[in-house]
């Protein structure tokens, strides 16, 4: 099933600071809910392990994350695919844009993803809500990380 999401987050740091954080594997790992591993394979490729729980389905997703369309410090596209074993799979991407706003940075994101297997079969009605919550958690964590670096 297809999943589409978009949103904006106001961050209290200049664009170049946000950009650095967005490319920092340690920061991303700390901010991604359920992320157990995020290993940098190259400047634009990571190996990731994350645990996701959607309704009755809980799975450890393993996969690769790629950064493309890098346009520092204006944004990039982050995409990937993960296998969750019997829980199914997820693949997709997000386009992230950064713009100056009110002395800080406005981060905009547009996500489109596909999920399949048990996640699609059972979690259908829950996936949108769960994804929104994961995105909210991520950006709350990220905003905190950005703020700390400014502190």
């Amino acid at each position, binding site marked *: 099933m*297809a999943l589409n999401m978009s949103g904006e987050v106001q961050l209290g740091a200049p664009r170049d600071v946000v950009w650095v954080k967005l490319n920092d594997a340690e920061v991303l790992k700390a901010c991604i809910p359920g992320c157990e591993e995020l290993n940098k394979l190259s400047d634009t490729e990571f190996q990731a392990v994350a645990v996701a729980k959607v309704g009755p389905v809980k799975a450890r997703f393993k996969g690769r994350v790629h950064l493309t369309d890098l346009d520092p410090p204006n944004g990039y596209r982050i995409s990937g695919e993960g296998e969750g074993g019997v829980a199914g799979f997820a693949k997709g991407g997000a386009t992230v844009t950064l713009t100056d706003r009110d002395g800080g940075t406005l981060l905009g994101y547009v996500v489109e993803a596909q999920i399949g297997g048990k996640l699609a079969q*059972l979690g259908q009605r829950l996936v949108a809500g769960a994804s929104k919550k994961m995105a909210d958690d991520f950006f709350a964590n990220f905003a905190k990380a950005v703020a700390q670096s400014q502190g």
Partner: protein
Amino acid sequence: MNATGIGAAVRRKEDYRFITGKGCYTDDISRPGEVRAIFVRSPHAHARIRAIETAAARTLPGVLAVLTGADLAADKIGNLICGWMIHSKDGSPMKMAPHPALAATKVCFVGDPIAVIVAETSAQARDAAEKVKVDYDILAAVTDPAAAQAKGAALIHEIAPNNTIYQWHLGDAKAADAALATARHVVALDIRNNRLVPNAIEPRAAIGEYDSGSGKYSLWNTTQNPHVARLVISAFVGVAPEHKLRVVAPDVGGGFGSKIFIYPEEVVCLWAARKVDRPVKWVCDRSEAFLADAHGRDHVTHAQMGFDGDGRITGLRVRTIANLGAYMSTFSSSVPTYLYATLLAGQYDIPAIYCAVDAVYTNSGPVDAYRGAGRPEATFVVERLMEVGARVLGIDPADLRKRNFIRKFPHQTPVIMNYDAGDYHASLKKALDMAQSRDFNKRKRESARNGKLRGIGYCAYIEACGIAPSQAVGSLGAGVGLWESAEVRVNPTGSVEVLTGCHQHGQGHETTFAQVVAERLGIPIDNVAIVHGDTDAVQFGMGTYGSRSAAVGLSAVVKALDKIEAKAKKIAAHLLEAAEADIVFADGRFSVSGTDKSVAWGEVTLQAYVAHKFSGQELEPGLKEGAFYDPTNFTFPAGCHICEVEIDPETGATRIVAWTAIDDFGTVINPMIVEGQVHGGIAQGIGQALLEGVVYDDNAQLVTGSFMDYSLPRADDLPSYNVGMTVTKCPGNPLGIKGCGEAGAIAAPAAVINAITDAIGSEDIAMPATPQAVWAAVRKANMGRKAA
């Protein structure tokens, strides 16, 4: 009428154990040393398997084996088969693609099993399943039957170009074309017969066992036909030789057709049991059932019916694409062909009919017979066309049907079937009376005052049951005969065991079969036991589906009872010292005609076994007879259902406010059980019409994969039914029985949609007619009216 004989509403003997939790289903059986199987299934609809990594799973605690398609192939286990050969109109055989029980090189639908984990516990097996890594090369997928044959559509099996399994046809194309070309009115409809999940209350389950001492295999399995399962597993799949394989179908909690088929999981359990030398049990969970049980229906149809100036049907032309899913299930090929197109005459004298059917592969679960199997689809086509025809011609729908009813029997239709008996006027008239159809307009005005739209819909259905004359189905491609067997074993005390090749999974055979036997022998119904569902007990049988058990299975019982009576009379003649020809048997006593000399049933049965009163050389001791009964024709249950709906145009919600069902099932053995069958069938038909429908998304993911998203009818979705009967006895079998198991599911969808379209004044509504769909149709119809 005897208090427990034919026609008596005897309470079901089996219900005590079912309602007190004493039933014994496959999962209630535990074999010593039993271990559990869990299947690893594909999350992708279409992908090549590059590699399967099982080493990590094998090392986990409790895991006995992780088996894949490569292991199946190494053991030379054969593919699953479709047992009904259909030839395309060009003479070529259907394109049956290989269907291994575990996919080895390619997966073709979400849920396709790839590996099995056998472990001490389910939890351990599930943990190990998480560790199996499959490297997939993901391919494009197609699930819409109407798109499957298009250029550029994903090709699912090399053997079937354009995903086309067969292009079959029946009838006279030229005659139908000519009839439509010269018709005064031609009514056309595009119909989508929605795909359904059977959802038996008991999910499928299997226990495979291998005894290395005797070399015997046993399979406890939720099957509607244990002997056919044994035959296919031994002769085609080749897991075990037939004489060394016992298949037991214990209590089975509903089938609706979905438990006819020979599935991968039971084959794998049996095979794995030998590999690990432990009994292997698998119990399907509800999510798996949604993916892996054979679904029903899924037709895309364009149909045209021609009428002359008097409203008489001149011809019918039907073009259908039938979705058979990713693999051909056991009887899938027969459903959209001989179980469908042969019923397109309905109850009507139609001079010319032509039907062309393309069956296609798609990346969806297999599709096969589901309650009604082809006949609901045929009835929906015919009865929707009749209703629309009536509206176009401005003739009362009941009147239009009357003008076209078949009146003389036997009646040869242009599509193979020869109807033996029926009275369609009688069932229509009784239904109209019972539904108080004359006052419908009054009720419609009353609804309108309350802001509601009221509609009435008819469905005058026919079906072919009593499946089936073996020679006839053999000539049409069936791989098996469809006779039935019975054995009547009389004990010395006079009690009786009846062994039947039929299998009950909700039908109540233990009661109805006993009613017939008890009445015939003049013994209490409690002295009759029905034995079924075990290939070690019953020699052979074809199982239960297609409303065949009473018409075919009971006919075999009656034939065996004839032999029992003949033998018992010989014994009685010795006891009474009279000529055999003078012995009369009635009410449980043998008497000498014209005298007061008689002897009771129990005395004769005892003497049969002690053999003191006759020479064992002249007359064999014992009292046991068997019979095989092969039907002379299909049976043709028919009737008329009338549905009345009230629709809230503001919300689109449809409420069924009245339901009248008049059915002609021939002789009825137990009216209470028959009424229950009618109720259940209508509920399933209403489910199809209003609520149920399988949805695969653009990536062929099943999104209606749980009861959150797949809506079964609940009590508050259903009305109280007015059920009645008319009777024309079936001339083809000894008791005059036609069969009742599927009628409701066949009649209901068209009756509901005819009522909804009557209420909203638009034919533009597809099943399931959810509130959203009805609301949109009402709006569209209103806008159309405003624009006009």
